[in-house]
């Protein structure tokens, strides 16, 4: 009994101790916020069940474990009770399952993606042991499946504009990795041989974590990247600065291409 009270108490104090969703404590993306809502919904349902079952358990142990040695009740069960405690949880569970469908569909089913964002992915992220290689199209151009001569490259440093859905193409060069943005509640494995489109929307300017969440070898722990979310104009300027630093040798770019 003490244990179950401690368990509930732990959940109550957890947010204030920082043992809860990563700082700032709420999701930075609208879809992530819906995921959090679903989490809290399930937490409420399971929390009530947990408390209910344990209150019942403790009460039963207290009432029938007194050591008075009275003879147990001779019963083999109750058909009514079985039906009740089959149908009620079945209804609740079915509700939980069906209620999740919409968010999942918006997260993963490609036809629900923002068409504009899907047509113009901001970058291709290629995971390899133990870093994230990022390839942006040149400013004003569209990302191609194969590398282009004017593509821009960074390592472990992904920039994205805020306030609108963006898509990245996720690939792996060697083993399985997983593209995890904890503050945005985004996670997708990078699978060798597949190019997977992943969309997210970050509504808050700042520097957020990019984590590898699938074991990828001895250096898995240090495969750390960073997502810099910035306003659209700053993002465009970032790309231009990147272009300058990678290509500007004093000769104008248009001439170099000839």
């Amino acid at each position, binding site marked *: 009994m003490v244990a179950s009270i401690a368990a509930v108490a732990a959940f109550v104090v957890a947010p204030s101790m920082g043992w809860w969703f990563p700082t700032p404590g709420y999701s930075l993306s609208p879809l992530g916020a819906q995921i959090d809502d679903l989490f809290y919904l399930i937490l409420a349902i399971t929390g009530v069940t947990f408390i209910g079952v344990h209150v019942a358990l403790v009460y039963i142990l207290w009432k*029938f474990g007194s050591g008075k040695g009275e003879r147990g009740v001779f019963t083999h069960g109750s058909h009514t009770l079985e039906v009740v405690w089959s149908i009620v*949880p079945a209804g609740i569970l079915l509700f939980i399952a069906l209620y999740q469908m919409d968010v999942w569909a918006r997260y993963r089913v490609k036809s629900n993606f923002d068409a504009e964002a899907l047509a113009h992915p901001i970058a291709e992220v290629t995971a390899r042991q133990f870093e994230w290689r990022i390839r942006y199209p040149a400013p004003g151009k569209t990302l191609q499946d194969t590398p282009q001569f004017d593509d821009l490259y960074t390592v472990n440093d992904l920039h994205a504009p805020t306030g609108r859905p963006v898509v990245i193409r996720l690939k792996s060069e060697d083993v399985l990795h997983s593209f995890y943005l904890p503050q945005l509640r985004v996670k997708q494995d990078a699978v060798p*041989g597949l190019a997977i489109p992943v969309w997210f929307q970050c509504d808050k300017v700042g520097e957020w974590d990019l984590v590898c969440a699938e*074991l990828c*070898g001895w250096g898995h722990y240090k495969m750390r990247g960073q997502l810099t979310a910035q306003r659209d104009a700053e993002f465009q300027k970032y790309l231009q600065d990147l272009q300058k630093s990678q290509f500007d040798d004093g000769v104008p770019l248009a001439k170099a291409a000839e």
Partner: protein
Amino acid sequence: MSTINPAQHLGAHEHGDAHAHGGHHEIGFVKKYIFSTDHKIIGIQFLFTTLLMLFLGGALALGVRWQLAFPWREMPIVGKLIFADQGGAIPPEFYTMLFTMHATVMIFLVIIPVLAGAFGNFLIPLQIGADDMAFPVLNMLSYWFMWPAVFFFVGSFFVEGGAAAAGWTSYPTLSANMSAAPASGLGQTMWLMGVTFVGFSSMLGSVNYMTTIINMRAPGMTLFRMPMTIWGMFITAILQAFALPVLTAAGFMLLFERTLGMSFFTPGGLVINNAPATTGGGQVLLWQHLFWFYSHPAVYIMILPAMGMVSDMISCFSRKPLFGYRPMVYSISAIAGLGFIVWGHHMFTSGMNPALGMTFMVSTIMIALPSAVKTFNWLGTLWGGNIQFTVPMLNSIGFVSMFVVGGLSGIFMAAVPVDIHIHDTYYIVAHFHYVLFGATLFGVFGAIHFWFPKMFGRMMSEKVGKVHFFLSFIAFNCTFFPMHMLGVAGFPRRLADPYHYPYLSHLMPLNQFITYSAILMGFAQFLLVGNFIYSIFKGKKVGRNPWNANSLEWTAPSPPGHGNFESVPVVYRGPYEFASPLVSEDFLLQTTYLPHEDRRAPQPAAH
């Protein structure tokens, strides 16, 4: 229900006596205790081996915990010995071996063999009233095929590069490619060999259990008079027989890919660790599907027998019939059936077709239903009982309590959108330890205390048992409950040093608390083993039925001789007739013949 008349009963007696008499002939020490074909000895061999492996697996876990609490700091006691090159600290590649082999040892050498191997072997013939297993030699082989696996798993630590380090799931291409990690050479190959041998051992066992339970039940032991333990073992054997071949096949595919240059799981054009580019057209996700097609049912292989044993213990120490025997049987079967169509929930973030995510979510959430029914029935069994807080009972109550936690936390992960965030975090670690340790292992602790008198004819100390239970229970919850919070905070699994991520750096104190609790929990297990070994020699001697239980094994001598029963037992009723109004004691053996029972018995509910 048919009643067997007393004349037949006596006849069975005479026949059985003659048989038991004929069975008495001297056998040598080696044949009796080492290469034994007696199911009881084999069961006890399994029990000793798995207890030993429990300490090996536990030690590996404490290594993991040390690194998470005090990353890159010198390990006390063993650090200087093993990691002299690193100043006594665990190097990251060894860390990946630690958690890989912790899971491997705990799953393949502890939990599966302690349930099916130890208790399955010991209890099945005794509880159904048979004199031995259907295939005693296969049974012996099933134990001895475990040892090559132990050799491969333990030995792999000493080969070049070290033991397998691709996680117990061994996802390609990390596990398929020889240059993907320092341990991707011989260590990984030995891991695959080890898993194959364990699989072989399980398969021999499962064929044997199915045949024995179907063919060798005592007269009157109908299917619906079998104790829940037998039902758990029976369903488990079926699960193993159907799921295991898939893992074995997948294991061979991976082995051939690594050694013969075939290509099932590796796509072409990968440059792994600067090795020459791979060739071939394999699919990475294929392994995940094949692996989890076995390994998800394996989760139920790792809990259904424990559920059965706990049902027996709860009914016995509530001194009351099991509530809803048939619904319990049906829900075990439902869990097993549904267990075959939920494997995809391990792959929600893997990149498989999102439509599959939806279907697997529905089947996964629905598997919580039979689990809930079982929990309510256990509560129903306790209700109105005369509860006795013996050590087996305490552990069984612990089982129910923690199974509820593990079951409820499972719903979060079954819900695909929520799983996106908590997938591959410590939330998962918390969940499956609640199910596999909190539930299964506590069930096993209870079962060890409960059937110990039958194994050795002596009791284990109740006092030490209680101290062990409370210490383990408290330390267990302090260890694994906070991991739920870590998971919600996005703390990923399998990172050797998570604290260099800014959003995780404040979690180190919580991890240190977890590690202290884990160390306490580890050392509490010495109480169990000390009590176990001491009681074999010095425990209080007991008769046949120290717990006043009903099922057949309690009518045999403690410990039962070769051939188990002096006469073939005849079964008149189910195993849970506690507090029956037909007799003055509060228990009624399955073999007790009551004249005119049919006329006087109150009509029991139909389920």
